[in-house]
């Protein structure tokens, strides 16, 4: 087993960050929290829970935080990098599954899919399934790659992928940019089924309709006009 690093982008996540870091440490060699300019105690709590904290001086968005975290992981010689949300919607056991899949060595990117059928029943609320399907269709239309969960925050990258990924967007649209990288860099990829934990808190932090529309416009502009 190589050096496993988990990257957690976090913005004002003092309610959940300590628990998420403690869980993540069960399956990773090291946990990096990228505090994206939080105004609460996110950094302090993450550090106390055992994470290495990288802090953005100002809020730049989840895509920018992921980019910074992945670069930090590469600096620390990660063999596999897994990204995870800070709102406690992902389980450490699923992050472990993603690590295991990347470590088999035949793929560069693994997506933890909340919609791929596995041993456990999916529990995504119906409106989220609808938004996600629209996101998947848009991602397919723009980048020609079909995945069952283009908006999942739980992903694994091999060392090769982590060293070469280029995320140009700063916001949620970066999630679809991972898929663009599959196409541009001819990465092999796979999806493993995961089960997300939906709480009122994680639901309030996720994408809503208006964020979805903004993301769609940015992706279309990014695809066709740079």
């Amino acid at each position, binding site marked *: 087993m190589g050096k496993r690093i988990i990257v957690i982008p976090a913005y004002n996540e003092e309610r959940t960050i300590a628990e998420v870091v403690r869980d993540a440490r069960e399956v990773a060699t090291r946990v990096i929290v990228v505090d994206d300019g939080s105004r609460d105690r996110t950094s302090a709590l993450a550090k106390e829970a055992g994470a290495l904290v*990288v802090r*953005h001086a*100002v809020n730049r968005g989840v895509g920018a935080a992921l980019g*910074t975290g992945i670069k930090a992981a590469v*600096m620390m010689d990660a063999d596999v990098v897994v990204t995870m949300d800070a709102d406690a919607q992902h389980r450490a056991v699923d992050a472990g599954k993603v690590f295991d899949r990347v470590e088999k060595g035949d793929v560069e990117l693994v997506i933890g899919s909340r919609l791929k059928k596995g041993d456990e029943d999916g529990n995504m609320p119906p409106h989220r399934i609808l938004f996600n399907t629209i996101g998947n269709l848009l991602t397919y239309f723009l980048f020609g790659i079909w995945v069952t969960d283009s908006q999942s925050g739980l992903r694994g990258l091999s060392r090769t992928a982590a060293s070469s990924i280029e995320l140009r967007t*700063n916001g949620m649209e970066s999630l679809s940019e991972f898929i663009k990288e599959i196409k541009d860099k001819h990465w092999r990829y796979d999806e493993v089924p995961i089960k997300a934990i939906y709480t009122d808190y994680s639901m309030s932090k996720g994408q809503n309709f208006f964020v979805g529309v903004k993301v769609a416009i940015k992706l279309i502009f990014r695809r*066709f006009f740079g």
Partner: protein
Amino acid sequence: MHAIQYVLVTFAFFAALGVFIRFRKGGMRLFHLGMWWMLWAGVVVVALLPDTTSLVARWLGVTRGADTALYFAMVLAFYLLFRTFGKIEDLDRQLTRVVRANALEKLENQLEAEKKVPPA
């Protein structure tokens, strides 16, 4: 050729040149340069062959041709909107690069300090 045609063709030429300069500076990929050039080539076609708009208008079922002032204003507004959007995107990316470099430099110092302190 009418004056408006000279104005529009010149305008499209400089806009396409501006996009090319941005491409040369590495601010844009070849595909996106192509997309912008197709857009400005469309403006040149419409300026030099105004009948093409009538063809489209007839196809769409609009009986009156494009009003010159409205037409000109729309092209200008479209150009300014996308130029502004492009500039904001550039600034956004540059700001992220600065913030990231700063954050990673601090991390590097922190890791160096960790190496120097022997584990308890």
